[in-house]
């Protein structure tokens, strides 16, 4: 007799278990290249997601590797194989548009932007970068600035030079420093950091508008102004160390700390490296200024997530995107990642000294996209452009490099 209620209770429990497991069948797979230093920031976001949607099992599919080079290859295999992840990380802008949007593989997120009121939360320049005439394609989570020049304040004082404001001024400063026995006033690292430098010289020489025209196909790379900027870049590279291609960006930054070189152009992830890894105080241990000639410009790159067509868990993925674009989501993620929020209404008290200054500039500057980091040029251009820079650095042939870049632009479909 006494067994029956227990049996009944067991049955009910079993029924409940099946029911709840049916509820928990909601799944979300997030594909990113955030591991290592960036892992905790992603985990914080996932935690926030789980608080809101506790029944969803989140599958964090991370493929490690700098700047997502490995992840992008894996992603390609999955997309072509017909098993797209529910939402994947990609550099905001042409890296997504030129690769996946033109191939008709992404869903238009315009309605999401409308319903969440994001058209006002994000700066118009950013919306322009992530949209085509057919729609808006991804939700930017964070923003990094790439036009920053880092220097060693103590050493600059010792050498008696000031921070140059334009590229011609930079070349003069460089000559002064060389006379004082600094072999390489500027430090650069492997190929992509040279591309990074190149784009800063370009923007500093052509101006923000000139830079945008280049990627809109309004200005050709063979334009005398662009060729002239290539020549300036060649002169800037003459100031740089000769062992560049053997150095990672961290190793290049180390030479600023050690005082071997005076300047380094790098994105603002370097601030995190200086403060967290090298334990230097912002302002005294290391200094920063906008790259020469770009004081009123904010060269941005952003990580963003998009929604591939035909995913299994569309509703869960939409919720994920909503969280990414929200104020709470961005303020959870960015202080940990060392970037700033793409939204203009973020809570600045959560950020460090450098990020605060960047966030202020974010609101007040003209925003343009970075080529090296996928914002303004499709992958097919960026990847092949590495070879152009490499050849230019050894040959210093401006006209040749400009012609090669133009040919690449035509091939990538924007330089007609």
């Amino acid at each position: 007799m006494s067994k029956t209620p227990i049996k009944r209770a067991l049955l009910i429990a079993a029924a409940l278990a099946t029911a709840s497991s049916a509820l928990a069948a909601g799944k979300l797979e997030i594909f990113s290249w955030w591991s290592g230093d960036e892992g905790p920031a992603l985990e914080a976001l996932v935690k926030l997601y789980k608080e809101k949607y506790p029944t969803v099992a989140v599958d964090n599919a991370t493929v490690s590797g700098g700047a997502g080079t490995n992840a992008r290859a894996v992603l390609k295999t999955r997309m072509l194989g017909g098993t797209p992840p529910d939402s994947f990380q990609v550099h905001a802008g042409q890296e997504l548009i030129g690769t996946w949007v033109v191939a008709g593989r992404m869903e238009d997120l315009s309605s999401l932007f409308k319903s969440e009121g994001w058209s006002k939360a994000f700066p118009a320049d950013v919306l322009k970068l992530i949209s085509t005439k057919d729609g808006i394609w991804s939700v930017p989570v964070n923003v990094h600035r790439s036009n920053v020049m880092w220097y060693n304040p103590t050493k600059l004082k010792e050498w008696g030079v000031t921070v140059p404001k334009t590229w011609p001024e930079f070349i003069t400063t460089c000559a002064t420093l060389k006379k004082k026995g600094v072999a390489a006033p500027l430090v650069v690292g492997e190929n992509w950091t040279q591309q990074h430098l190149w784009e800063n010289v370009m923007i500093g020489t052509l101006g923000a508008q000139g830079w945008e025209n280049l990627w809109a196909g309004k200005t050709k790379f063979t334009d005398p102004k662009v060729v002239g900027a290539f020549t300036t870049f060649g002169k800037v590279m003459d100031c740089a160390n000769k062992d560049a291609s053997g150095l990672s960006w961290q190793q290049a930054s180390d030479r600023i700390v050690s005082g071997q070189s005076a300047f380094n152009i790098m994105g603002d992830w370097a601030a995190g490296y200086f403060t967290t890894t090298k334990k230097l105080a912002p302002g005294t241990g290391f200094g920063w200024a906008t790259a020469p000639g770009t004081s009123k410009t904010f060269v941005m790159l952003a990580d963003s997530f998009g929604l591939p067509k035909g995913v299994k868990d569309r509703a869960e993925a939409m919720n994920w995107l909503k969280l990414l674009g929200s104020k709470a989501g961005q303020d959870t993620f960015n202080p940990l990642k060392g970037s700033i929020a793409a939204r203009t209404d973020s809570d600045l008290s959560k950020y460090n000294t450098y990020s605060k200054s960047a966030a202020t500039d974010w609101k007040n500057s003209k925003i343009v996209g970075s080529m090296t980091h996928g914002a303004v040029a499709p992958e097919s251009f960026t990847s092949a452009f590495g070879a152009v820079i490499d050849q230019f650095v050894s040959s210093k042939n401006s006209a040749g490099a400009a012609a090669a870049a133009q040919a690449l632009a035509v091939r990538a479909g924007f330089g007609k």
Partner: protein
Amino acid sequence: MKSLSKDRLWAIAVLTPSIILIGIFVYYFIGRTIYVSLTDWGNDPAQALALNPIIRWVGLQNYTELFTGFLQGRFRQELVNTLFFTVFFIVGCLGVGLGLALILDRNPKGEGLWRTIFLFPMSLSFIVTGTIWRWMLQPQGGVNQAPTLLGGQPSSFAWLSSNDSVLKFDWNNLPLITAAVVGAVLIVVAVRAAREGQRTRTLVAAACAALLILWAVFIGPRVRLLAAPELHGFNFAMIGIIIAAVWQMSGYTMALYLAGLRGIPEELREAAKVDGAQDAQMYRFVIFPLLSPITLSAMIILGHISLKIFDLVYAMAGPDNIAASVPALNMYLTSFRQNQFALGAAIGTILLILVAFVIVPYLANQFKTEEGHS
């Protein structure tokens, strides 16, 4: 049906699955790659990754692009790099391997230990070797710091990042150089044939050589592959990669040579000694000739490793360092970063042809000797 014995049926049953699998996953895909290399898949970014891409047949356009295209200078430099890498890698491995084998053949103390130590690098994968050697060849550390141990100045050789090169030639002269080399080889063939008294062979070879040399003198200089001269040569940045590759594979050639040396019957050495041969003469006239088949097979194995090398270069020099790049790396970048699948397939096909140049004569040789034995 005598031939269909139970044994034979079993053999067929066991072999069929692997024949089918190899047929699909090796030969079908080779065919598929060659087909893709003759299309324009990926040249238009909008079609590259589309669900149902429109792919058009373009014939040999991708190959023309690789050898003469304005944007593909990188590929041409890589072909030159591969050539130099193969030569130095094979010579280095054979030299070091033979040297080590000769030393070990003299039965030094702790021979087994030495053998293990020398063979050990082979157990590492190229990616590990590459990472370790990249650390050692860093401009600021490792090998360049070695002189400071003796109180000297640190060296500043850019092992992996140098842009300097030697033995430069203009790619435009490639047809000319090829014609001259083939012509020279044909002349040698003709002279040999004449000595052996084979008339037709002499005549054909001499006529071909004359034609080629005439072409090289009168038409060759006017052939222009590219609009502008393009210099390629042996980049110093390859030196670091060659050192690492030789370090990895020379233990293997040592093992081959050691097996060969141990296989030489003691009687032959004794006979040579009885005939009054000194050590050097014994090696020169008795031992080295007996090792030549081993040299051949080592060359083939090393040759195809060097042609398809990828991971070592990726780990040591990085993907964007043209001075030290190889076609396999370019194939990966072209296909999976630039989404130019057809162009990537064309590079792959060229690699296949290069490897075939090495492997096919070897296989032919093997089958011949097997038939000879049976």
